[in-house]
């Protein structure tokens, strides 16, 4: 029983980080009605920003993390929206999707050229100790990863549902033309959405890199898992992306421990097929509209 609990808690910790990236998919879908296929690389890259501040600039960890967050929001949020999404927004659909695929390759190969192909050690953010919960020995890092991720999701949900700016973002997602007529600066709301997505990706990167290390190819797996998590949970709901991420994290760990580790990479894809056949709108998704 204690082993089961340990596996589940560890899965929830990893899954909560998947959820951060999955929520980013959802937000960008709502704001620009496109799928950002560079989302995995958006999670890969901030770790390198942090490493640059640590190793090249010689900054302390806290300053390097702040640097990584700010540069990520600027590059992966503001510049991504202004230079790639905005010029293509009138056409949306396929051209923008292809552009994000190209961006994914550019970021991945850029990181490889700039920082090398080897995995880079990444400093832990939390104490490397363990604690006992109900007889299960769980690492403090897993527990704090889970706590931080869930706290951020709760804060984001409160922001979207309980503030006027959040309501404007919701209105823009649901009906941009009407929101504009009602005085909402919809371009600014879309920009906010992209900035939030970049911040979530940076946070996911900082939490997962101590485990995965910083490597140019990290985005491949993370991007696919987060994409599947968003679809499984429901592409038009933040809480759906959260559930999808947690579900995949837990099932992944359970499969690796109790069935086989050989097919763990296939599990999200099997889950995706089952969900699409059984409930195409996702576990918590709705078929009638867009909502953040």
């Amino acid at each position: 029983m204690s082993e089961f609990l340990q596996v589940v808690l560890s899965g929830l910790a990893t899954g909560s980080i998947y959820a951060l990236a999955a929520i980013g998919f959802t937000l960008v879908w709502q704001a620009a009605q496109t799928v950002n296929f560079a989302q995995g690389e958006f999670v890969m890259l901030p770790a390198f920003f942090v490493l640059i501040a640590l190793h090249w600039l010689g900054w302390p960890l806290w300053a390097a993390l702040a640097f990584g967050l700010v540069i990520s929001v600027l590059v992966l949020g503001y510049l991504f929206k202004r230079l790639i999404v905005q010029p293509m927004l009138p056409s949306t659909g396929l051209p923008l999707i292809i552009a994000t695929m190209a961006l994914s390759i550019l970021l991945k190969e850029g990181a490889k050229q700039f920082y090398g192909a080897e995995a880079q050690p990444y400093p832990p953010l939390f104490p490397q100790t363990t604690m006992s919960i109900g007889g299960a020995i769980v690492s403090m890092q897993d527990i704090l990863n889970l706590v931080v991720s869930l706290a951020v999701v709760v804060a984001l949900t409160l922001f979207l549902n309980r503030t006027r700016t959040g309501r404007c973002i919701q209105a823009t997602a649901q009906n941009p033309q009407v929101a504009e007529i009602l005085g909402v600066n919809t371009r600014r709301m879309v920009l906010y959405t992209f900035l939030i997505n970049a911040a979530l990706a940076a946070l996911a990167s900082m939490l997962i890199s101590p485990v995965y290390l910083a490597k140019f190819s990290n985005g491949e797996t993370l991007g696919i898992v987060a994409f599947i998590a968003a679809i499984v949970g429901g592409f038009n709901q933040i809480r759906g992306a959260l559930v999808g991420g947690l579900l995949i994290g837990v099932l992944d760990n359970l499969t690796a421990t109790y069935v086989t580790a050989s097919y763990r990479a296939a599990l999200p894809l099997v889950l995706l097929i089952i969900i699409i056949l059984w409930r195409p709108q996702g576990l918590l998704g709705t078929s009638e509209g867009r909502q953040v």
Partner: protein
Amino acid sequence: MSAASPVLSVRDLSKTFGAIKAVDGVSFDVRPGEILGLIGPNGSGKSTLFNCILGQLKPDTGHVEVNGRDVSGRRACDLNKLGVGRTFQQLSVFPQMTVLDNIIVAGQEHRGTMLGRLFGAPDAGLAGEADRMIDFFRLTHLRDQMAGSLSYGQQKLVDAAMAFMAGPSLVLLDEPAGGVNLTMLAGLKERLSTYNREHGTTFVVIEHNMEFVMSLCSRIIVLAEGRVIAEGGPEEIRSNQTVIDAYLGG
């Protein structure tokens, strides 16, 4: 601005899509407190004209003034802050928000500061005002329901309430009667007349329902193929042979 100055002034407005001239040199003024009807056969350029006035389409020529200010090329969200509201031909509510939240969104952009948007009261202090607007349009029993779950006619009423929530001086109503049943239609007309009488708000109404437009509007402009072909009071328009020919394809 003098008392006689128009609320809305449109001058020589034109808009072309490829070889089709959707709006062709249209000029007119709308006086304060007036309810102006804008009618014409399908494809006569009415909605395009609205979109050009509100900055949703960029006109090829001409300019638009609101309360004496040239607003040509301004975005719709800027015009809203200058007191211009609009309803849409198609349903235009936020389907996954409650009726109350729809009405609050419609009014909140005129309130508060950047910090207030993040940390101020979620209802922007508008809950009371929103409730009064909900009562005015007789939507009280639907206040906490998701707007997307309402009937077509009820959503039209929510749409109208949203257009008035910011206290506009001018509202462009695009086919408010479209798809609304007769009972609700009478209620909507009565609410619009009452609002106009009590607040002095100016309306420009696009409508195909002749009975509705003739009984609501004091003056009517008729468009055909993007041009103004007639202008006058309801009775004058009803008996105008050019208008009759335009509708009958003569």
